[in-house]
């Protein structure tokens, strides 16, 4: 198969990974006040784990000694920090002391995560654009 945009596979996998990260962050933001989950406990903050994987399929086109690496999200892990306790005696999910466990989500943290995911996505998009314009500029060698 001809390889027109070289190195685009790593970028594509990174775009995918950042997309998943953004999905998880928005899921956290959506559930910031969720006091009951399917397991009967308040929602727990999720966070993505990125992992570099070898891409052997395109190893032949890369310079010798360097194997192309891709990013993937092997799993989404739970944040182990304790839940926030708020005193709300009239809440249906309040315990005997009138305390309600709210998810261990800090909205500022989530906003920073969202921005960082968005910026990383943008950076990878710039890589795609640069690869594309390089290919087009190379094709213009043949024009006169």
């Amino acid at each position, binding site marked *: *198969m001809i390889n027109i*945009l070289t190195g685009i596979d790593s970028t594509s996998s990174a*775009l995918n990974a950042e*997309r998943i990260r953004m999905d998880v962050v928005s899921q956290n933001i959506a559930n910031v006040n969720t006091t009951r989950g399917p397991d009967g406990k308040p929602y727990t903050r999720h966070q993505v784990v990125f992992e570099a994987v070898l891409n052997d399929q395109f190893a032949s086109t890369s310079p010798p000694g360097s194997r192309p690496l891709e990013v993937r999200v092997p799993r989404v892990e739970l944040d182990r920090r304790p839940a926030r306790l708020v005193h709300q005696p009239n809440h249906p999910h309040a315990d005997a002391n009138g305390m309600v466990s709210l998810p261990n989500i800090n909205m500022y943290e989530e906003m920073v995560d969202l921005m960082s995911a968005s910026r990383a996505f943008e950076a990878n998009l710039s890589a795609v654009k640069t690869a594309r314009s390089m*290919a087009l500029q190379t*094709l213009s060698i043949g024009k006169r």
Partner: protein
Amino acid sequence: MNPLSALRSLAVPAMRPESMVPANLEAAKPKSIPFTELEKLSPGILPLPNTVQPTTGGFEKMVTDFVGEVTAKQGEAANSVNGLMSGKNVSLHQTMIAMEEASISFQLMVEVRNKLLESYQELMRMQV
């Protein structure tokens, strides 16, 4: 109708050396003397016939394969767009990258075709 099939049929005959010679030149060529007549004149001067086999399907096959790969890339892009439209698990950037790859490889193919035609026309302009 696949637009690439037209190009394939355009590219393939042009690659054959004999089709580069126009028909009227064929008629103007001196008539060749049969080998048997020449053998009678001086035996042993003629080279053995068919010592050099013309290579078949070298460049022609390469061009055809290349056009096939461009078609494959376009099919890949179309599949990706279909998957995205029908709500399969295809992401937007994968579709855009596939479309971009198809577009660039098509442009590369057009450039190759331009070069081929240019060299053919250069040959046709040559004074004999």
